[in-house]
């Protein structure tokens, strides 16, 4: 991490550990993550530990985790993917855009509910 004009002392690759091919892209920057309760293994870095610590009592997105730890967002995503594939973190799908009521050009939640009730009434009928 760089501190001002200082030369960086701790490079970001320390967080992910060396070696290993990158995992397939499975997570989005807004995927919520929480701890699954599985213990960490010996090959996990102190940063892995900190990530699990951050999401033990609640969930955070990968970007938020990266921001808390002062790491690049891309590295935060890599960390999250590593931990999800190890089973230490559980990922849940991002909040659907449809739930946001005032998104320009998207149907509102109210409209979707009306459509749903219409469909249900069709099926009942």
């Amino acid at each position, binding site marked *: *991490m760089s501190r001002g004009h*200082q030369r960086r002392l*701790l490079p*970001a690759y320390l967080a*992910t550990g060396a070696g290993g091919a990158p995992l397939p892209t499975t997570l989005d*920057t807004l995927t919520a993550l929480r701890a699954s309760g599985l213990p960490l293994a010996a090959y996990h870095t102190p940063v892995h*530990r900190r990530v699990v*610590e951050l999401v033990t009592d609640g969930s955070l997105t990968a970007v938020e985790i990266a921001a808390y730890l002062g790491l690049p967002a*891309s*590295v935060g995503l890599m960390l999250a993917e590593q931990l999800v594939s190890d089973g230490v973190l559980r990922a849940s799908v991002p909040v659907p855009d449809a739930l946001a009521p005032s998104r320009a050009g998207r149907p509102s939640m109210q409209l979707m509910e009306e459509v749903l009730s219409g469909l249900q009434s069709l099926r009942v009928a």
Partner: protein
Amino acid sequence: MTSPSEPAVVLGAVTVVMAAVALLLALSRRKQVRRCREMDAALKSAEARTRSAESRTDDAEAREERFRAEVSHLVSARLPALKLNLISSHHPVPGLLHEKTAGPEDAELLDSVLTRVSEIVLTERRRVDAAARAALRGASQDSQALSYRLQSELDALQREFTGSRQLTHRMLAADHLNEQNLRLIQRTAIVCGAWPGHVRKDTYVAELVTGASSRLRGFDRIKINSRIASNVGIVGRAAEPVAVACAELMANALEHSRDDLAVDVSLIQTGNGNVSITVDDAGKGMTAEAAARGVRLVSADSQDVMLTELGDPPSQGFVAIGRLVADYGFHVSVDNPSPYGGVRAVVTIPPNLLASIDEEAEPPSAMAPQAAVAPKAERRPSAATETATATETPADDEKSRASAPDGADGLPQRRRRGPAATTGGLTVPSYRAPDPERSRKAWSEFQDGLEGGRTDSDSEETQ
């Protein structure tokens, strides 16, 4: 009167003359004999002189012969031996050919030739070495600066792009390669007399050692255990030198232990305030000769090591450490065996190079290992609440700073926070807590006993 006869006169005259002549003859003969004797003596002494002159000539010739032999011995045997001796003192220089018969002046003269030659060779060697070092230093400092720029560039790239994981992965790999390259260049520059390249701020010891490990291939195998207070740092001017020394020692440890073995690094603070960074490897250890050489190189007082003495390929690690030790005043020892049979290297940082860092103003990075809880605090459960409140003050700061969900229960390595985690593993407090049933029972028994005793004594008194 009778006049004498004429013949008588003549006879008389002749007799007189004869006598005179005889006298003269006798005199002259004596002179002759004396002169003869003198001549004889002169002749003898001349002969003796000639003889002594001849023997002296022989002596001189013999000495010249010996001297010539000594000089040719000097040229054919002693000077070539001196050449080897200047490379390594294992090669002895032979003495004079005729040690006993040679005059002291000759011996001195011949030895002074050797002294002068070795002086000239050494001076010249130092001049050439200094030139080589200057050239190498210039090149490596330029290269080091470029590598730092590349590092900044890669760092910025990593922060800027969140695209494909493949790209991130390769950028991290490139960053690591550049970091390894940087270590090699920086080491060469230091061996050639350059300064480490930049000054840091005061830096946490744990961060510094972690940062040093990131410069090595196989940094995953380095396990850092910190047992020092988390706010202990190294003053800025010594931070980078200590990092370089640690990186070299860890590189040695990684190189000399098997690929599947971890290298243990532990950080402790000793009673006299020094911080010790101990690097243990499980390699084969060093031979006595290698250890002695290592000790010599990393000590502060042998800094006239030349590039030509470093071997081929040059082993620069210890020399770089030695230069930093001499310049910055910390201490390195490499001659202890490790508990695993390899080498234990210890970097000792004296209190004057340590600093206490405000953890709130400069929070430690998530990438450095956290300090383990001091074992002393874990042992006494009854005092748990007191100790917790006493140590809570720094911990509190950290808690508020982290501003994230605490989750103390899932974290074995952090300092103790939640009472559940503490009491969970310990059985002692359960019966130390006041239990009304037990107290009532104890007190009523006490009272019964007391009353029983009183009634007994009362009855005794009344009897």
